[in-house]
């Protein structure tokens, strides 16, 4: 997936420049709440259950201060990504045991045209191999600025 295409899946309504949450459970809920507010999801409890199960499978805290909670659910009709940042950092059980600052929540329906969901997960991962990107994302304040980094500008 091209960076510009990845960028097109983000939405300014699903963007939190500074999280209120201070623990793992609260982060998942705060992010999910965005999807509810924007009417993408009606039943957050079902989606939260799925995200808990996903963490059972393995932490989505991939290290370097990044977590990508994700999954497919019957309770969603479109592939959606939310972004949130915590300057203080949150204990998320990440694979490197370090606190997480950058959160990307990817929710997808049971099936999607062209398997966009896996392509999105695949194209997010390499972004964090570049420490410069992580540093810039940590300082991000506006959605426009954020999209610039994701697009590789």
């Amino acid at each position, binding site marked *: 997936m091209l960076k510009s295409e990845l960028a097109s899946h983000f939405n300014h309504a699903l963007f939190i420049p500074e999280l209120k949450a201070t623990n793992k459970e609260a982060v998942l809920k705060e992010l999910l709440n965005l999807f509810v507010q924007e009417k993408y999801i*009606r*039943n957050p*409890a*079902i989606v939260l*259950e*799925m995200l808990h*199960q*996903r963490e*059972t*499978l*393995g*932490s*989505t805290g*991939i290290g370097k201060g990044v977590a*990508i909670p*994700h*999954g*497919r*659910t*019957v*309770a*969603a*009709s479109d592939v959606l990504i939310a972004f949130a940042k915590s300057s203080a950092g949150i204990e998320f059980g990440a*694979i490197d045991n370090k606190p997480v600052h950058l959160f990307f929540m990817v929710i997808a*329906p*049971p*099936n999607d045209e062209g398997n966009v969901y*896996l392509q999105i*997960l*695949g194209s997010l*991962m390499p972004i964090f191999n570049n420490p410069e990107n992580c540093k810039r994302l940590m300082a991000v304040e506006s959605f426009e600025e954020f999209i610039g980094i994701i697009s590789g500008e």
Partner: protein
Amino acid sequence: MAMNDLERLVSLQDLDLMIQEADEVAKLGFAMTGYAELQKAREELAMQIRKPLLSRYERLRAKLKRAIVPVKNDICLGCFLRQPTSLAARGREDEQIFTCENCGRMLYWLD
């Protein structure tokens, strides 16, 4: 959370898709340490679903890959057929499980 039959089926399929795609997601670089634990959670959830309903789910899954699909704007997102208005009103309110007349999948109303 206290779930009804429909919600249990939704959760079961969410789990089944997760298990099914675990290898592909692992290849992208995600750590998968709890595969056995997730299998166990799947079996425990399946035990809470009435036998005939579970069999129906398993049969549909074997035949159509997705046994239960979202309905949005009255469209079945399994086969994209519009559902009759009478069914749509009941599908939203009732605890009963409805199926798409066209593809036979069980329906979960999103709106």
